[in-house]
């Protein structure tokens, strides 16, 4: 039996019916549903276009676990979720329906607080303490880094408060954009200074 020329055989097999993007998309959707039903979808995510750019939203079974700005690099964020939470990650928008709806209402000026189950597992130690305090700063209000430091019982730790805000796993939902400098300057933001200004102006309207 003569050996088959691999390239020639592959040319022959190219006559098989093609696999279309629509077919793969339908199978992907079916996998998202069945994995959710089977309880093996540890992290579901989607993206959402907003006035502050495209956001990545990710949720565990427990709740929203990560909101990420484009500047953070969505691929890197997903890799980090794979390492820190679980690699069982799929793009599966349904689990994020409520988060996407509430964020849409927020940007439309129709929502002042979020009512979503949150999974704080990516914030630990002092950062967790800060992130847990921030939802207490109401819509339209601001607080200084020093004031937040004092409120969580470590008045000298205002720099650590800055770090906690810069690594907030749930920006927007946990309002680190309401923490500003004592002189009134908005200060840095993980979504960029422009995004922070936009959010503060939205809430001041």
């Amino acid at each position, binding site marked *: *039996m003569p*050996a*088959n020329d*691999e390239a*020639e*055989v*592959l*040319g*022959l*097999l*190219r*006559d*098989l*019916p093609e*696999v279309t993007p629509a*077919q*793969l998309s339908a*199978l*992907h959707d*079916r*996998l998202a549903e*069945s*994995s959710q039903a*089977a309880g*093996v*979808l540890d*992290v579901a*995510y989607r993206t959402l276009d907003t006035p502050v750019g495209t956001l990545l939203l990710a949720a565990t079974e427990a709740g929203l676990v990560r909101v990420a700005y484009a500047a953070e690099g969505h691929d890197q964020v*997903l*890799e980090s*979720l*794979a*390492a820190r939470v*679980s*690699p*069982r*990650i*799929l*793009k599966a928008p349904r689990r994020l329906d409520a988060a996407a709806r509430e964020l849409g209402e927020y940007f439309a000026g129709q929502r002042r607080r979020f009512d979503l189950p949150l999974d704080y597992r990516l914030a630990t130690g002092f950062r967790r303490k800060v992130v847990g305090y921030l939802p207490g700063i109401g819509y339209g209000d601001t607080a200084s880094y020093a004031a937040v430091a004092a409120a969580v019982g470590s008045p000298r730790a205002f720099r650590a408060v800055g770090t906690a805000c810069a690594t907030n796993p749930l920006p927007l939902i946990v309002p680190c954009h309401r923490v500003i400098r004592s002189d009134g300057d908005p200060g840095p933001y993980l979504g960029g200074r422009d995004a922070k200004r936009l959010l503060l102006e939205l809430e001041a309207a």
Partner: protein
Amino acid sequence: MTGKQPFEAVVADHAATVLRVCRAVLGPADADDAWSETFLAALRAYPDLPGDANVEAWLVTIAHRKAIDVTRAAARRAVPVADVPEKPAAGRADGRDLDLADALAALPRRQREAVAYHYLAGLPYASVAAVTGGTADAARRAAADGIANLRKTYPGPEPVGSARPEGETHARQR
């Protein structure tokens, strides 16, 4: 934990190949079910997959088992009836005797598997043998026999008017 990529990336990288393999081994009607079972099982087991594992070979191994399950389930469902139609007779409306998918479906299962796992999934014969059992030489022979049979039964693409990728040669000894 080492840097294992999100499972979404595994789906993006391997979905099309696994679907081609499932179609080749099972035929188009059962391929979607086998694909879905394969990726659901893979997602379930993914955290335990060693970081240096060959993901394609791992997926083909799962798909092979799922294909066997699907075939057994179909056999259990099959109810004897008095007048069983034979396989579709050669000769199609478009005048071609047999399309390649039909020709592939008509191969003995071992040949179909060897062709699918080696040529469609790109596994070396040693890996094919690890999936199907038997030796690498036996897998190589099964694939060669399969291709030889395909050449006998499949007349080739329609020569006129069928779009082919640019630069592809049609040389095919038959």
